[in-house]
């Protein structure tokens, strides 16, 4: 029986606590008597018969007819699936998407449906490389569909292949992939790593155009998204997406949503110390930690990065449900929270976060400084329900090397964003008004997004907006161990050590602040009372 998550009050006997530092780790001593560490629940057991569970979900959907009853010869069927941003790290083969899509195709073949298109729901993310598509879908699906042009990636800038479904009462235009819009049935295959994903967000962002996304991916909306991972009614982003979802339901194609949840068994056996509580480390864990950290210090950054991005995670499916989008998503959310929720009493003055080597926007790529901000303030800060872990005006301390390093193939517009926009302003609202249009409509970025493997020109803005609420909420943000000029460019304060960071933070929160440390990995959502 896996143990639930818990909050550990740091005392004299508490060993130093593990922090991510990009492509390495460190152990940090937290002040005694006023610090607490929030440990995630242990991974839930995976479903034993995954293929059986998938088949059962397809034949027994929620608020929807069984899938075979929705299929008929001569129909137009579109299957869309989540892109490479999920799950993290990439899971061992066979990927959940492959299993689900193969099971769907079995039923589709039995129904005599020929017109089937499979679309990677990228939104404005980068196109997936062939090896990534093969990893997500398996060689069988790739080899059968890609050469015939029946497997491809969504293009949010291909205006000939986008269509408007309708407009919300707030004036938001829902414009999605034409093939999906014209289909008799759209099946969406989702992986829900965090509670923010899934539901109506799947299609209304994954298959949407820039015009559609620009309604809710704004600095103002994200500043007003007070609960990205928790209650939807406190998230301006989700409210907008749910309005668009209503338009899709009323005026769009028939949908069949398949959502799955994963456990948090994220790292293979050789990194087992990552998932353990420090006082439970065995001699082997300690030796592994020392070997890994010392070894990594001797390696060049590129080699370290490659090593970490090559990790294939053993995490597995804990639930799969299918049917009507809203009904399915509620069950999914319950499952996600069952795995990730940890009750926590009250807020603290300081929140400490170790930033890992990967975020949803740099799989197999570089964690550039903009993504460090996005990961820290956009994702990890938001891993709460009800209230943030840190009080308003408190300090957020992150650990990451924050290199001034970019992947020019995946993140070309990030480079210019860092050099041009961040030197002008770090305010998400101001940069949205002043700079966003220029980047979004830049022909070169558009070309790289459509034909290469680049994120859309506007994507660095969206990554920055993701941290807008955290940026607004925190009185100061400190990065320990980061490249000082780069950290300052982000609008944050650099510190060499954790003690220095606490010293710097004392200007804002006094000499004896209370501290919360979010022990990631694995994933957890702090349910702050």
């Amino acid at each position, binding site marked *: 029986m896996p143990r639930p998550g818990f909050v550990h009050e740091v005392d004299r006997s508490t060993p130093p606590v593990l922090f991510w530092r990009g492509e390495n780790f460190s152990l940090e001593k937290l002040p005694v008597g006023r610090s607490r560490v929030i440990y995630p629940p242990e991974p839930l057991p995976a479903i034993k018969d995954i293929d059986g569970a998938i088949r059962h979900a397809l034949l027994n959907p929620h608020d929807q007819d069984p899938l075979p009853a929705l299929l008929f010869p001569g129909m137009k069927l579109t299957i869309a699936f989540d892109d490479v941003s999920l799950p993290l790290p990439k899971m061992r083969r066979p990927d959940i998407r492959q299993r689900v899509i193969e099971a769907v195709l079995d039923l589709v073949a039995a129904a005599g449906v020929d017109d089937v298109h499979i679309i990677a729901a990228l939104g404005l993310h980068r196109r997936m490389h062939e090896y990534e598509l093969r990893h997500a879908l398996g060689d*069988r699906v790739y*080899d059968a569909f890609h050469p015939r042009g029946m497997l491809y990636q969504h293009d949010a800038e291909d205006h000939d292949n986008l269509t408007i479904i309708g407009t919300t009462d707030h004036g938001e235009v829902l414009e999605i992939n034409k093939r999906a819009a014209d289909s008799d049935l759209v099946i969406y295959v989702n992986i829900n790593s965090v509670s923010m994903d899934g539901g109506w967000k799947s299609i209304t962002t994954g298959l949407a155009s820039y015009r559609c996304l620009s309604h809710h991916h704004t600095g103002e909306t994200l500043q007003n998204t007070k609960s990205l991972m928790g209650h939807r009614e406190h998230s301006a982003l989700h409210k907008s997406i749910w309005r668009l979802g209503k338009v899709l339901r009323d005026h769009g194609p028939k949908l069949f949503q398949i959502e799955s949840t994963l456990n948090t068994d994220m790292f293979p056996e050789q990194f087992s110390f990552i998932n353990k509580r420090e006082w439970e480390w065995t001699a082997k864990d300690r030796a592994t930690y020392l070997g890994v950290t010392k070894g990594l210090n001797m390696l060049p950054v590129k080699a370290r990065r490659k090593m970490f991005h090559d990790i294939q995670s053993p995490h597995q499916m804990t639930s799969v449900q299918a049917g009507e989008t809203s009904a399915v998503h509620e069950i999914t959310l319950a499952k996600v929270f069952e795995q990730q929720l940890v009750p926590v009493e009250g807020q603290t003055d300081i929140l400490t976060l170790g930033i890992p080597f990967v975020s949803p926007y740099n799989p197999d790529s570089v964690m550039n400084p903009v993504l460090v901000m996005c990961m820290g303030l956009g994702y990890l800060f938001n891993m709460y329900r009800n209230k943030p872990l840190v009080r308003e005006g408190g300090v957020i301390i992150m650990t990451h090397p924050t290199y001034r390093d970019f992947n020019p193939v995946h993140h070309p517009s990030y480079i210019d964003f860092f050099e041009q926009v961040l030197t002008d302003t770090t305010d998400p609202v101001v940069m949205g008004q002043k700079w966003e249009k220029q980047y979004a409509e830049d022909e070169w970025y558009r070309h790289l997004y459509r034909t290469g493997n680049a994120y859309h020109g506007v994507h660095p803005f969206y990554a920055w907006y993701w941290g807008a609420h955290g940026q607004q909420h925190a009185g100061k943000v400190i990065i320990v161990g980061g490249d000082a000029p780069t950290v300052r460019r982000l609008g944050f304060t650099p510190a060499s050590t954790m003690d220095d960071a606490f010293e710097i933070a004392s200007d804002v929160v006094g000499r004896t602040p209370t501290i919360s440390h979010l022990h990631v990995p694995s994933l957890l959502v702090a349910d702050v009372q």
Partner: protein
Amino acid sequence: MSDKRTASVAQLRKVAKVGDAASSALQTVLRPARNLGFPYRRPSRPKGVVMPPEKNTLGSDFDTAWARKAPARAARSVITRGPMAAMVKAIANPEVEGLDRLHDLLEQDPLPAVIFAPNHHSHVDTPLIISVMPTEFRKKLVIAAAADYFFDTRVKGTLSALALNAFPIEREVTTRKSSDELRRLIDTGWSLVIYPEGGRSPDGWGQEFKGGAAYLSGRTGVPVVPVFIDGTGSIYGKGMKRPKPGATKVVFGSPLWPEDGENTRRFNARIEAAVTALGDEALTDFWTARKNAAAGANPKLTGPEYNSWRRQWALAEHRKLGKAGQRRRQRRRWPDLG
């Protein structure tokens, strides 16, 4: 020139002398032994007595238990990883697909026993499937081999048991003894490769599946993994004098369990259909094969119904589509334009 010839003749004479001396020395040593009688030699048989029948130790009675003990397993591990893998790579150059379908079985602790049921065209099939299957299964694997072919002499039987961990079974009628022994092996965690066709294809097309795999699965509850092997027939098919190196493809299918109330015959038909669909998948792609399977239109492994030269003709066309056809493609030669 003549001096050289004289010298070589002298050398040959010397060699002949040495040979003669060795031969006479050997005869001197052996002479006393030749003169020794019973009990050093076999007893003479008196006329008129009826001898009790000798216990048969060949064929399905060949004892292979020693081949599953630690020393033989260690030796086999070396053989499998070394010469066998090199031989398979050189002769058959395999491409493997569908191993991900075994993921769930591999995740189980302890590893469950599995019955692999491939089609069968060649003696290359067994080393090929052994070398491409996941190591976890290979460590504890028995091959069901025709008792009348692999165990008809002591030397062949010993070599088959050592190198392949072959276990003798009758092709036509599985005796109670070998069936019970196979069940016992499966129950103790040994996986099994059994060719449901019963033997190599006589004409290059497949044969009807016999029910051995389905029967054992029904009795033991372990899954059957259908496997399709393409290309070995034209490398070393039945009747070929020597192997002709080429390319092969091995496609593993999803494990199949007998359903509630499903008899051996029906389960056997399902296994055959699964291998047939994998054959289609190997020659076309996953989606085409699934659609054909749903419509019952996967090309049969047994080939066309007619029985004449057209069957052989169709076989040649069929092979062109598969891995065997790749070898025959001409390398393009670009004209030399100076």
